[in-house]
Every structure is written in C-alpha cells, then in structure tokens.
C-alpha cells in the first residue's frame, strides 16, 4: 500500500515532521512525498536516509518534486 504525504507550501520543519511521522507509521514499503522547494527536498531525503529509507526516484514537474522513498 503506497502512501502520499503532501508537504507542498509548508515551511521548515513541517515537511520533515510529516515525512518522519509517515515513515515511522509504515516502517516499510513505499512512501511518496510532494514538496515544492529544493530545501524541503534535501531535508526530506536526509531525514529518510537517517531512518534507513532509500530514495527510489525524484520527479520534477512545474517547480514541484515528487519524491519516492522505499524500505524493505
């Protein structure tokens, strides 16, 4: 079951808070995070890596990023 976190328009540290909350809930599988700044993208990837999640792709569209994270 793939989950999506929509962190677009949210300022620091909300995107990371929401991502970590979702990661800790599911513990493994796939998570998609939507952000709209480069800072948020970097922060989400850094936080995910610290929890042992892998980046499975980042797609950019119209200034927004769709980050796919996987574990397990």
């Amino acid at each position, binding site marked *: 079951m793939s989950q999506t976190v929509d962190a677009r*328009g949210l*300022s620091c*540290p909300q995107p990371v808070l929401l991502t970590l909350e979702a990661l800790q809930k599911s513990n493994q599988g796939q998570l998609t995070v939507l952000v*709209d700044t*480069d*800072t948020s993208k970097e922060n989400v*990837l850094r*936080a995910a*890596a610290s929890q042992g999640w892998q980046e499975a792709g980042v797609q950019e569209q119209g*200034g927004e990023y769709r980050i796919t994270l996987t574990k397990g």
Partner: protein
Amino acid sequence: MAAWGNISATRTGIIAVGAILGVLAPVLQKLGNPGNMGICVACFERDIAGGVGLHRAAVVQYIRPEIIGFVVGALISAYIFKEFRARAGSAPIVRFILGFFAMVGALVFLGCPWRALFRLAAGDGNAIFGLLGLVAGIGIGVLFLKNGYNLGRSQTTYAAVGWLLPLVMLGFLILMLLFPQIPDKELNTILFYSVKGPGSQHAPLLISLVLGLFIGIICQRSRFCTMGAFRDLLLFRQIHLLSGLIALLVTAFVTNLVLSQFKPGFENQPVAHTMQLWNFGGMVLAGLAFALAGGCPGRQLFMAGEGDGDAAIFALGMIVGAAFSHNFLMASSPKGVGEYGIVAVFIGLIVCLGIGFTMRQKI
C-alpha cells in the same frame, strides 16, 4: 545519493560555509565594523531602521550594505541554481509579529544568534547566557512543533512578489549612493549616519556589499541557519546544521586570535551588558520567535531572496520592531536593559506563547 546535486548542502558543504562565515565576520570587524559585530543581522537591521529615520537613536544609524548583499546575493544564487520560487500567504501578519518580537528580544540581549556566536568567539562571556536563552527559546518552540503548531501552507505566486524585498534592498543601496555619508554630519538630506557609536563604525561600503553578496550566495545554497541548528538537534537529533554552526565558532575564535580581537571576560565587552538574566531572557523570546517562524534572522533574509514573501514580511517585522525598540526604550545599551526592556520581554513571550498555543491547524 551523490550530494543530491548540491554540494554546499552536504555535511562538508555546511561545515565549509560555517568556517567561511567564521573568518569573514572578524575580518569585517577588522575592516571597520563594530566590536564583535562583524556580522549581526539584528543589529544591522536596527541600524537600517535608524538610517532611514524610523528611530532616532543617534549611535545606531547606518544603512548596512551587508544586509542588502544577503538578500540580493540569495536572489542571484536562487536564479543561478534555478531555485527561485515565489511563494507567499502563510499567515503573513503572524510572521510580521514574530519578526517584531524576535527583534525586541534580540535587542534586549544585544545581538542575533550570529552575533551571540561571534561575541562568544571573541571572549565575551555574557554571550553564554544569550546562547543558553536562545536554546531554551528554541526548545519551547520545538514543544509547539511537536504538538502540531504550524502556520499553514504558502501559495505559489507571481515572480514579482518574490522580487519585492530584493528591490526594497536595492532601493536602500541607491539611496546610499544618492545621499552618501558626509564626514561628521548626522544627516544627508534624508538619510541618517551616526557620527559616533557602533553606527559610525563600518567597513567600506563596497567591501561590505561584496562580502554580503558572497555570504548571501553561499548561505542560500547551504541553507545555513543558526536556529535550525538547535531545533534540528532537539527535534530530530540531527546535527547537520549544527556542524556548520560549530565550524563558525571554531574559525571565528581562531581568526579573532590571529587578528588580536580575542579578549576574554564579562565586563566592558563591546556593545554588551552584564545583566545575565536579561541576556538570557531576551534570547528566550528571540529563540521562540525564530522557531515559530522557521528560521533565524539570517535565514529569513536568504529565504526572502529566493522568493519567500513570508520570510520577507518577517524581516520587515524585525526592522519595524527595531524602530519600536528604540523609540519605546525597550532596547538595551552597554549600561544595561532599557527602561521598558523587561516588560517588553514578558509581553513578547505572552504573544509568542499565544501564537504557539492557538495556531495548530490540521494540515
């Protein structure tokens, strides 16, 4: 994960940026900026408020080119690296009020978090109490964040919205060129220039501007943030931003030693007072306001440069807060806290706590 395409935002990158800032600030002091104030975002915005006559504290009036450089440098960097995103609309009035009280608190201590670090790195022991207050204030902010505090989403908007604060800053620069400082004169037509005190001490305009631009570029790229350094440690146990802050402290200490600017002690430190409870209390207020607004005063300027209209409002709130701080006798001086400084800290804390308790919309 090769650096996620941005080397300056890696651990090495943030440490390098912190280390560069730690060298540049003491050098700016050597070149003319006030004591332990090579860079101070709060003090410099306060000086700008004085330079354009929003307050009439004669010793702190000068449009600081560093601040202009921070915003415009971040704008340039954001365009070069395709990170400019005009956005606005996340509770702007709250951000203004947070900026206002962040400045009130910072001027009770006499410095922003950057200056607190530079003061410590030059041996000013009073800064320890300010930094402890800063961490305590951020700690309170972290509790609010853990309990769902947020100011809601911003909206993508016209690019021109993101240009407004950089244009205001360029306007200040043009005014400085049209109405330059006249030696020993307090006023050139419309701009105020201190003839004594910290406002009269400054590096040459061009050097301040160029170094400001450079700092704006590297900080936009690296996301350097002094508030974030402590917040991420308390909230996520992450030391990414903190590692940059520690690098700054180390290189500033060494540079001060090399330049003979290291003078350990508590008494008679430049632009500082020894009322430790209020060094602490002022920064509790500032730290809480920064945490609720999502960035230290420097970071707010860099975000404003990359198009964040809400960060721009926070910066304007700080400038207005500085004007009120001096007009209403809330700002400290080397003699101690201002007549209404202590009551201002309490009012600010009540306001910030109110914001923290009441703004928890479901995302």
